[in-house]
């Protein structure tokens, strides 16, 4: 199911435009950063939350989904204030969108380099 934030965004077109090595890097790095964010939030490590959100924000420059950058910012700000409860909703939405986007990448034949 397409996340509501991605409605009206031609993600497939953007994915098709990604050079192969960048698609692979997005997939590999995206999976890793989401795992880092999940772990940081689970253990309440605000600095690690900020680091992961910052890195995810960079990835958003590869695909035109504005909501991802917005959520990454909200998560980063929550970490900066050390109020990780405020990161709960943007974290859930970011993970939902990233899961869908990574799925789209895989459907276009991209594979992760993760070992």
């Amino acid at each position, binding site marked *: 199911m397409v996340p509501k934030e991605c409605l009206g965004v031609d993600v497939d077109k953007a994915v098709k435009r*990604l050079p192969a090595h*960048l698609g692979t890097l997005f997939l590999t*790095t995206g999976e890793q950063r989401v795992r880092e964010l999940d772990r940081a939030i689970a253990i309440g490590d605000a600095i690690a939350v900020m*680091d992961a959100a910052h890195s995810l924000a960079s*990835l958003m420059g590869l695909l035109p989904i504005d909501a991802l950058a917005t959520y990454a910012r909200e998560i*980063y700000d929550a970490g900066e204030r050390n109020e990780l409860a405020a990161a709960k909703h943007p974290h859930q939405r970011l993970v939902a969108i990233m899961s869908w986007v990574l799925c789209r990448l895989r459907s276009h034949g991209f594979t992760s380099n993760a070992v």
Partner: protein
Amino acid sequence: MHESLGNEVIAALLVSATINGVVERWDELTKDHPFPAALLDTRMVYLAVNGPYARAFELSPSALVGKEYATIHRDTDDVLLLLKAVTLGERFVFPLFSPAKQGDSEGYRSWSLTPLKNPKEPTVGLLVEYYPNDPEV
């Protein structure tokens, strides 16, 4: 609008035909430019930076030149954006997630990535620039 160095640098590339020729003219090209600018090759290694760029990252130009972008900017995955600009041969402007320093005033708010190439030839380098505001507004 905050003027980009892109046109001057691309013109210098047309004249010199090589990225090394642009490096040789870098100081002349950037001497009056008030905002951070850096020149990288396609392996994402710094070839030249101006003073504002070095100051924004609290490093000397010599500490940057010859280093890989990802080595200097370990806290982000921004190098993927640089790769995108070089690979697609397109200019991009992005908001800065963490505004870089700008003396005592507000930080830089956006940055641009301009691939450097002669017509019909592959990209040979990348111009990275920072701006106090969106340069395309």
